[in-house]
């Protein structure tokens, strides 16, 4: 006897899924009775591979953990190693790191615009914002040599200093993006159809949000001002002036609003950074990278990535290889238990919409 509910496989080979994962839906009519997330399609065993690589080699594979936004990985790991070793980071390096992180955040938000609007059928928005994201990638390419994977932030600082004239280019790009934001508003955020689609969809109970492990923009959209940059400031974020996105609707619309606000804030932050960045050393050189040993210790460090709190748990046993690296991305909670909860009773039309609003990124779930 077959089941009553129809099984729908959303993914892995499906245009509606973010990346390579699968959400198995049981639907009756177009109402979802239950959903279960299946991951593992991208599992590479990073944590195992890092046990076989020395500290510096680990950086080359680390950044591949979350593809849309690789920099928080590097920064996190570098900071964890520094915190275990007690290594000082030059002031300028901290500023450069913050700049890289904010640029990465802008890029990720632009990519998210594409995902969120594309899942609602507004493809023009995606075309524009991904095209604009390329300008950020160009900056990265000039700074680090790579478009996507940078391997730029190292323990002890960053790999290179800013190239000549880079500051102007960054500021120009920021000005350009700020102008574009107005057009995004017209196309997406002021669009009544988009608002009709987004309002009231994917509601997270604000009273339960923290307990369910919601972090990042979804949590701020629930009216809880929580951001690692404010709560547990790292690098130089306590010296920057910025506000957090805020919404109380706790639905897809609220999350869009939060992100829309924060991309503006990030642009401002990049400007502040370029303004206040001190001169000086950018790299506190580590002795011999191949034989570099880190004293025993452990650290749990976290960054506010574009999707929320991104944590690294690093344990060293005193050898030249990490004992254990455990990565916890926000999607680890968002895309599994939270998504399964939110999809119960939702409409089929909204699956991909809700998924995008939570900032699902499968590679960080399975690593």
């Amino acid at each position: 006897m077959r089941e009553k509910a129809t099984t729908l496989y959303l993914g892995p080979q499906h245009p509606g899924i973010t990346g390579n994962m699968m959400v198995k839906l049981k639907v009756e009519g177009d109402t979802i009775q239950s959903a279960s997330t299946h991951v593992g399609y991208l599992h590479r065993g990073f944590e195992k591979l890092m046990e076989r690589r020395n500290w510096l080699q680990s950086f080359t594979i680390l950044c591949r953990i979350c593809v849309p936004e690789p920099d928080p990985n590097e920064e996190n790991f570098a900071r964890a190693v520094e915190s275990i070793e007690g290594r000082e980071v030059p002031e300028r390096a901290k500023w450069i790191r913050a700049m890289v992180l904010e640029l990465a955040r802008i890029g990720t938000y632009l990519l998210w615009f594409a995902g969120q609007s594309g899942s609602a059928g507004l493809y023009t928005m995606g075309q524009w914002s991904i095209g604009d994201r390329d300008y950020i990638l160009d900056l990265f390419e000039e700074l680090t040599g790579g478009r996507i994977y940078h391997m730029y932030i190292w323990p002890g600082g960053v790999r290179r200093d800013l190239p000549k004239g880079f500051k102007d280019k960054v500021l120009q790009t920021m000005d350009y993006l700020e102008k574009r934001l107005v057009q995004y508003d017209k196309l997406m955020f002021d669009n009544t159809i988009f608002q009709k689609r987004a309002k009231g969809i994917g509601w997270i109970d604000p009273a339960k949000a923290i307990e369910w492990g919601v972090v990042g923009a979804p949590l701020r959209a629930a009216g809880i001002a929580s951001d690692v940059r404010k709560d547990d400031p790292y690098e130089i974020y306590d010296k920057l002036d910025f506000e957090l996105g805020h919404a109380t609707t706790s639905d897809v619309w609220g999350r869009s609003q939060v992100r829309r606000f924060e991309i503006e804030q990030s642009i401002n932050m990049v400007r502040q950074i370029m303004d206040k960045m001190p001169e000086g050393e950018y790299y506190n050189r580590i002795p011999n990278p191949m034989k570099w040993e880190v004293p025993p210790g452990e650290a749990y460090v976290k960054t506010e990535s574009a999707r929320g709190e991104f944590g690294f748990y690093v344990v060293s046993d005193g050898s030249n290889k990490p004992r254990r690296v455990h990565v916890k991305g926000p999607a680890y909670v968002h895309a599994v238990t939270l998504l399964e909860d939110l999809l119960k009773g939702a409409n089929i039309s909204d699956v991909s919409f809700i998924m995008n609003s939570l900032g699902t990124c499968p590679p960080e779930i399975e690593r």
Partner: protein
Amino acid sequence: MNSLLLVILILLAGAVLSFLANRIMPILSGVMSFLSIGAAAVIFFVQVSAADSMAIPISGFSLHWGINAYSWLFGAMVLGLSVFVALYAIAFMKGKDRLGYFFFNFNLTIMAMMGIVFSTDWVSLFIFWEIMTWSSFLIIIYAGISEGRVGTKYMIFSAIGGYAMFMAILVSNSLLGSFQIADLVSGFGTLSLGNQALIGILFMVAFGVKSAVMPLHVWAPRAYADSPMAFTAIFSGLLSKMGIFGMGILMISVFAQGTIGQTFIFSNILAWLGAVTSVIATFYALIQKDAKRLLAYSSIAQLGYIIVGLAIGTPLSIMAALFLAVVHAIFKGTLFMVVGAVERQAGTTNMEELGALIRKMPWTFMAALFSIIALAGVPPLGGFVGKWMLYESLITSGFGANYFLVIMVFLSSTAAFLYSYRFLFGLFLGQEEPEFDHVKEAPAIMVVPMVVLALLLLVIGAFPGLLFEPIANAMAYMGVDVNWNMTVLSNVWGDEVHMEPLWTSILVMFVIGATFLTFKTRRNTRYVTTKDIHTSGEIPEAHENMTFSVNFYQPFERAIEPVMKRKMDTYYNRIGEGLESLFGFARKIYTGNGQTYAIYVIIFLSILILIGETIFNK
């Protein structure tokens, strides 16, 4: 012997014989029924002519029978479809018990319908009407008393209808001094407006119950769905047409004589009732999960169109209504037979469970496909012709409210695509399920009637003139003149649709397309099972259901939610509950036993006769 009497007697004899034959051999009883209906049909089509008439004197009063072009149309419809259904019923009912009971009532119903058609006075019409009601009631409870007390509901509404008709007959008799239908037609104009309205409303209630007009439709869905399918084909296809038959007499000829005919209000209310019936019934049809009930609601909706057509009263609209009545009898009869075949072969008609019967029952599918296309009114099949005439008649009628009526009708018939597709998809398409692997095509004796009727729809689509001719004759008898052409549809503005070039075009293109598809890389075209589908790269497990069949039209349901919140049934139930508590003792009467009901029916009949006698002797 008079051929009219012969038809009735043969049918009656068939009823008795099939009842007796059951004692000898169950299958014989179906055969007897089929043979008698066949013989009656032969006599009807060969012997019966417009000149036939007869009178049966009963205690100083005589029952008058006759035949005219209008009643010939309905008589032909009844016997024409009944032959096929009776043939189908032989195989369908095989192996069931109490066949004698079933076929006795089956034949009796058909006899009663023929009697109604033959009657030229109200009394004999009323008698046959009641016989029809009882015999059909007995078949509804053939399967036993179901939980919804379907039979009771049907009986209550039929009784209301019966009393209404009885009252109407008495009133008209006391006013005009005659039971003859013709006398009512000629004398109607002389009555006062109040009396016209009284008679009209009473008759309308009587006929409206049988043709399931909006507030009186409550009995129909369950009654259609719970009877054996072989009978439902008759029930929905023909029995409901008796209501249309009566309404036709009233709307076309009676009302046209009276002032009420000119006031528009009466016919307009009826037309809107018909349209609302069809819209609401369509909405209900598309949320059903049982194919039988889907078709039952669909029947109500289709009868709604016919009523709209009759009520509008222009020549084209009456033609459309009569055309639709005939075509509806054919395709709905076929569809109920299809569902019966599926039920017999697969054991269920639940569209959420069934699926992919197309490969196992291809002929049944073909019959279903043709009937559904006709039902949906898609060209080039017969249903389209009727729909087209209905729309054109509404648009060309030149009356403002009718333009919105056409939108209502259109809404209902567009929404009919939804349930049409749901029906085909739920039963015949979708995923192949291992639990239905054993299903085989129905026996030939069931397939042949279905396929023949389906092909008939095709022929009617190409040559609607075949049907126009008898309809035009009937209308001419009723005093409405129409022009008709063999393959051209036309309205009063002079716009035409030519069916022949349409057919040619469709046929040519279809053949070209199909040929191309078949021969282009034929060697490399492969058939795969329905398990080999795009499932995002995953391989579904065996227990997982890959057919989307539950709540198929949920988005649409959400859109029409405000309309669907209120259900007429609940109002009646509330009234019923109130009455029940008031008359607690009345519950004792409803024993739930068919035979007790039969006794009530007989008592009811004798009371009626007593009342009648007292009035006749006045």
